């Protein structure tokens, strides 16, 4: 059963190899089939974890600390499930038209390599192996961003530099942990690492991963990269790639590094600033994809806002399920919003908000997808975003962290603010005496209309399965 884990990492690589060998016309078919198989393996991993508990596979038969182990507990299974769902949906969207994958060939192999990198991170139980998987993710993500339009290579280069500096900080932290505990396995390192040895690697790793997850002071690189990349790449970037580095710092925080109140507070405060500042910046944007990109910065703020609450031992299990619910909700909803934005951009030729006026009339299904994803991003009831915010609120109120409650509420209003602008434009009828002309949208292929709706519906529907998600997340610990 545990042999599933390496398969989950290597199957996307095999698909990437197949796509690389085929000419551009044939790549969508092989990519789609490979994506389907990988999604099936992901689902199998999730089912296996729910039924058998923690899975562990010793690569090459060597047990840690010498060899490398792959481990899947509840936390990892949740993210594996997210990657399966969002990854497969985005590949279906990408298969709908060649225009969605940028003007150069190379989307399909790079997308599958990104998928493999993500699996490598989520299932890693070895520190250095997580670093190498992070590099796989980083490099293929840079490659995908570079496939975009005119400004894309420059944005990709900036992203590359950020990715490398972040990874080097992580590498230094890994060196320190190895020096202190002479092991690279996360659990063993966690048992042996003492508090006075642990603070420096924690600071370095947190800074590195904060950089790669675009935490506020280090967020400038994200909007050009996510908004500039092709329509099929943006959802992968915002929904999944950003989660890879966040997952890593969360895993290190829970398993390896001892409790540290100062770093927890700093991350929490930066998260709070990110929620507000990201929201304000998103309000100022006029282009749909940039609004959604800045919304990622704001939503990532929510994820880091959880660290001060994660730091309290009593509330850790509840808070972890809250963070996982928030990450999954953002993943599903953001993928829905970006695919819808991409489809609208391909239809109307522009992603300026005024260019979308009255699009709701001809593209009802697409508008419904955007509305559902907005419901989850804002955190309105029934959606997974709401139940995640509810769990945040509960722990924050129990521990008397009033500033977190305030940030959560203001964040909701800000999200409503910046998401209302594009939605209002969609509903607006321009046949009145308005100066802006009616947007005539070229006919969209079925996949481009139904994928955003499916993802949005999942983001809202998943709210009903919050108790199951909490049960899944607590497998293996907590």
């Amino acid at each position, binding site marked *: 059963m545990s042999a599933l884990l390496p398969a989950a990492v290597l199957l996307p690589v095999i698909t990437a190899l197949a796509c690389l060998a085929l000419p551009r016309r044939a790549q969508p078919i092989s990519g789609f089939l490979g994506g389907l198989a990988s999604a099936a393996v992901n689902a199998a991993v999730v089912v296996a974890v729910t039924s058998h508990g923690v899975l562990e596979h010793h690569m090459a038969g060597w047990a840690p600390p010498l060899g490398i182990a792959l481990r899947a507990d509840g936390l990892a299974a949740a993210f594996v499930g997210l990657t399966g769902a969002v990854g497969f949906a985005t590949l279906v969207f990408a298969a709908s038209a060649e225009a969605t994958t940028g003007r150069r060939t190379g989307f399909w192999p790079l997308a599958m390599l990104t998928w493999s990198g993500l699996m490598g991170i989520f299932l890693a139980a070895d520190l250095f192996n997580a670093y190498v998987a992070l590099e796989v993710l980083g490099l293929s993500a840079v490659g995908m961003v570079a496939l975009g339009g005119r400004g894309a290579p420059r944005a990709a280069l900036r992203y590359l530099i950020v990715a490398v500096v972040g990874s080097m900080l992580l590498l230094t932290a890994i060196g320190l942990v190895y020096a202190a505990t002479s092991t690279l396995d996360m659990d063993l390192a966690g048992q042996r690492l003492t508090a006075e040895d642990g603070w420096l690697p924690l600071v370095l790793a947190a800074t590195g991963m904060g950089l790669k997850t675009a935490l506020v002071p280090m967020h400038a690189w994200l909007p050009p990269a996510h908004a500039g990349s092709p329509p099929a790449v943006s959802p992968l970037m915002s929904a999944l790639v950003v989660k890879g580095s966040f997952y890593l710092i969360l895993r290190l925080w829970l398993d390896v590094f001892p409790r540290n109140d100062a770093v927890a507070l700093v991350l929490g405060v930066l998260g709070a600033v990110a929620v507000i500042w990201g929201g304000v910046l998103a309000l100022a944007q006029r282009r749909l994809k940039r609004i959604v990109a800045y919304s990622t910065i704001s939503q990532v703020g929510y994820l880091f806002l959880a660290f001060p609450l994660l730091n309290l031992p009593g509330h850790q299990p509840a808070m972890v399920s809250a963070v996982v619910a928030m990450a999954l909700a953002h993943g599903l909803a953001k993928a829905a919003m970006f695919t819808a934005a991409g489809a609208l951009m391909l239809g109307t030729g522009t992603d300026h908000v005024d260019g979308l006026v009255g699009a709701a009339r001809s593209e009802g299904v697409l508008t419904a997808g955007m509305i559902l994803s907005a419901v989850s991003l804002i955190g309105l009831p029934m959606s997974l975003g709401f139940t995640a915010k509810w769990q945040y609120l509960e722990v924050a109120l129990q521990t008397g962290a009033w500033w977190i409650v305030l940030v959560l509420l203001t964040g909701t209003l800000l999200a409503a603010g910046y998401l209302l602008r594009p939605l209002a434009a969609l509903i607006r009828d321009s046949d009145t005496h308005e100066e802006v002309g009616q947007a005539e949208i070229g006919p969209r292929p079925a996949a481009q209309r139904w994928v955003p709706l499916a993802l949005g519906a999942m983001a809202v529907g998943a709210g*009903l399965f919050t108790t199951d998600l909490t049960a899944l997340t607590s497998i293996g610990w907590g």
Partner: protein
Amino acid sequence: MMQQLLTAVPLILIALSAAPALIIFMLPERANRTRVTINVAAAALKVGLMAAMVPLILRTDVAPELRIPFLPGTDLVLRIDSLSLLFTLLSALLWLVTTVYAIGYLAGRPNQRRFFGFFALCVTATVGIAFAGNLVTFLVFYEMLSLVTYPLVAHYGTSGALAAARVYLFYALGGGLLVLAATAWLTIVAGPVEFSPGGAEAVAALARDHPGVAIAIFGLLVAGFGVKAALFPFHSWLPRAMVAPAPVSALLHAVAVVKAGAFGLIRVIDDLYGVELAAGLGVLTPLLVVACFTVLYGSVRALLQDDIKKRLAYSTVSQVSYIALGLSMLSVVATTGGVVHLVHQGLSKITLFFCAGLVAEVWGIKKISQLDGLGRRMPLTAAAFTAGALSMIGIPPMAGFISKWQLGAGALDAGQPWVIGVLIGSALLNAAYFLPVVVRMWFRPPAEIREGPVENRTRPVLEAPATLLWPAVATACFAIAVGLFAGLPFSPLDVAGHIAERVYR
């Protein structure tokens, strides 16, 4: 077997209003005929089913309940008790009537699919609010109502409509956030709390241990629901939202949205805290003061408006506060008055909005000054408007009189005679802004009105298209009937009395 059937009933009723919405969204824009049949059939079926439930619920006191696991620790609870029955019956009946009215009103206009789809979703939310068994479920449908009514308010798509809709959405979301914070706080300090007549013990225990927290939570809840109930500081979205089409103003701002806020207040005061406990905590008197102020303030602002719909909107602001007024007095009679006013105000106000829509649609009249001599041109509409206005003022035997009488008696019973002064004052103000309109309609020579946008309509043998006229007349008759036959069993007054007794068990 009976038990399974009963637990399924709430779900069936919600599905009955949600299913048409999904079907309508699937249908293409031009499928008018099928859309009309689906709407009317679903509405009629629902009214029938609710009517059948009435004796079952009231007599055997069984409360069908459905639990769905939702959040760790708290579930989604759908339960039908007598209060939810009253509110659902009202909304089902008025949904049927308004659907007929909307079909006539929007005939030949664009975006009907979107309108009727969200219209049905809005009613689903209202039914959900009525059946909610705990605060979390209530909040879920409360926020859904805010979201679903946004496209209805912004239906015409003009920049003015969008601006009004944006203001409405932010007020509603703000209210929702207050309720969210309060619910989370309450769940933590008092555990998952369910509505139970006369107040929940956990809340009573909380009020004993740390009253400060209980008061703070009460304040947040009342503020959150006060936004939709248009209590004084949070009322300004209501007049601005009059830019919506007439059926939207009629159903939403006379029945669904405003009543959701009032219904929330009833649940919090009667079924969560319990009136005695709330009085003990001393939170009722400030609410009473705010309610009284809103009653007077609404009436005064209504007096100054020349636009028909704006005047009706401010009248709604003041009338809904009657319900809050009734709730915040420690007496069975007052609570009955508050609860029954929920129904009476709904019936009367929807008649007035229908007439306003009729007048605007047939003669293009938007201002009160243009209403001279309407009696001669549109006798039935004028008669319906007069019935609604009299009920608002509270002249016997109309419905309004019954509820105001109850409130007056309740004020005496609760030992707060000054409230009667407020009631009389507001009755006079109501008369001041409604009677001139009635007088203008019946006793003034018809003013010559340049042919408004009406000339493209063939001069109907009746004064207005049937689908618009009969709903208005029907609701007017309901308002009269409810007033006349208030004494009968199963009348709204009787049901309200039944509810009030169980609150003071």
